[in-house]
């Protein structure tokens, strides 16, 4: 049964996108990526250390993960201008026109800035990028981003790095039901059941990082996430039963012993 995720015409067999930051060490990061079964890993763009400065952690990530598809992010950018320059630098550095677009509007909550996000999406699409914007779980914002040419939308499950899971399943279900482009739930996933819920709500994929990288055993959690996303996707395709407020026996009522 072929059930590929298609983004901007590219066919992907894994519906999990994994971040590469915050692991106990780079070996565990590499093993977790492998265990997750993902094809796409996210990376950030940062200034190189100047002579005399300590080298940045994770600078060997590209070498360790050669063969994976890199999805650069614009994490930390607070304006469309900075996000666009970061995307252009990433395209040059990694020879990919895909970008996970983040434009943060508030440093405490890391909530996206909708206005800057819309502006950055518009301009990056014009510049030939495949734009995957991280956005709030707002159906109208998701619609606007898709209308502007975003290749997918990436509504938050809950706050970045919070592990709070899917804060607003009703909104997410609504977004998934109406979206013309793939919906990738990004941020907030805490454990495997959160990923299952996202997929059961109709998400096309899940992007996560901290739930794996900060787990007691990141490699085992990466395996759990792979299975969770497969299970959630299968359940969504299978179609769940409606919920009802009364019991209904599953065994036949006729021929009971002693009746």
């Amino acid at each position, binding site marked *: 049964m072929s059930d590929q995720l298609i983004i901007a015409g590219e066919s992907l067999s894994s519906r999990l996108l994994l971040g*590469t930051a915050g692991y106990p060490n780079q070996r565990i990061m590499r093993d977790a990526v492998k265990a997750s079964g993902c094809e796409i890993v996210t*990376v950030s763009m*940062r*200034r*190189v250390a100047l002579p005399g400065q300590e080298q*940045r952690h*994770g600078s060997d990530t590209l070498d360790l993960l050669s063969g994976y598809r890199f999805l*650069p992010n614009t994490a930390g950018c607070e304006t469309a201008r900075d996000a666009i320059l970061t995307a252009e*630098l990433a395209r040059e550095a990694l020879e990919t026109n895909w970008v996970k677009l983040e434009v943060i509007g508030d440093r405490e909550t890391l909530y996206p800035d909708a206005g800057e996000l819309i502006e950055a999406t518009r301009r990056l699409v014009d510049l030939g990028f495949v734009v995957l914007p991280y956005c709030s779980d707002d159906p109208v914002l998701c619609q606007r981003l898709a209308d502007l040419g975003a290749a997918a939308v990436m509504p938050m499950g809950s706050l970045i*790095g919070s592990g709070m899971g899917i804060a607003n399943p009703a909104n997410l279900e609504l977004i998934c039901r109406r979206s013309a482009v793939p919906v990738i739930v990004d941020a907030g996933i805490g454990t495997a059941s959160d990923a299952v819920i996202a997929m059961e709500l109709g998400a096309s994929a899940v992007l996560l990082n901290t739930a794996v990288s900060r787990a007691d055993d990141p490699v085992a959690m990466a395996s759990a996430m792979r299975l969770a996303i497969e299970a959630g996707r299968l359940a969504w395709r299978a179609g769940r039963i409606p919920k009802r407020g009364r019991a209904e026996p599953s065994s036949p009522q006729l021929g009971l012993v002693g009746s």
Partner: protein
Amino acid sequence: MKININGIEQEFDCTGSQASFRQISLQHIWEAHGREREIESARGFAIALNGHLVRRAQWPQTPIAPGDRIEIVRALSGG
């Protein structure tokens, strides 16, 4: 000649070839790599001059002037 590199102002001798955009860029990339690499294989790195991307092919012929801001970035772990 003072050039701002990744937010830190540095003084360069503008009489020799040391103060070319290409030389400054490659020197910093080599430092970050811990070993020398050819310009063509500077994968993972990119450079902006005064807020605008400078494509790799343009590094050799990009002029610099006092007060220029150079951003040299690389791909790192990220979420």
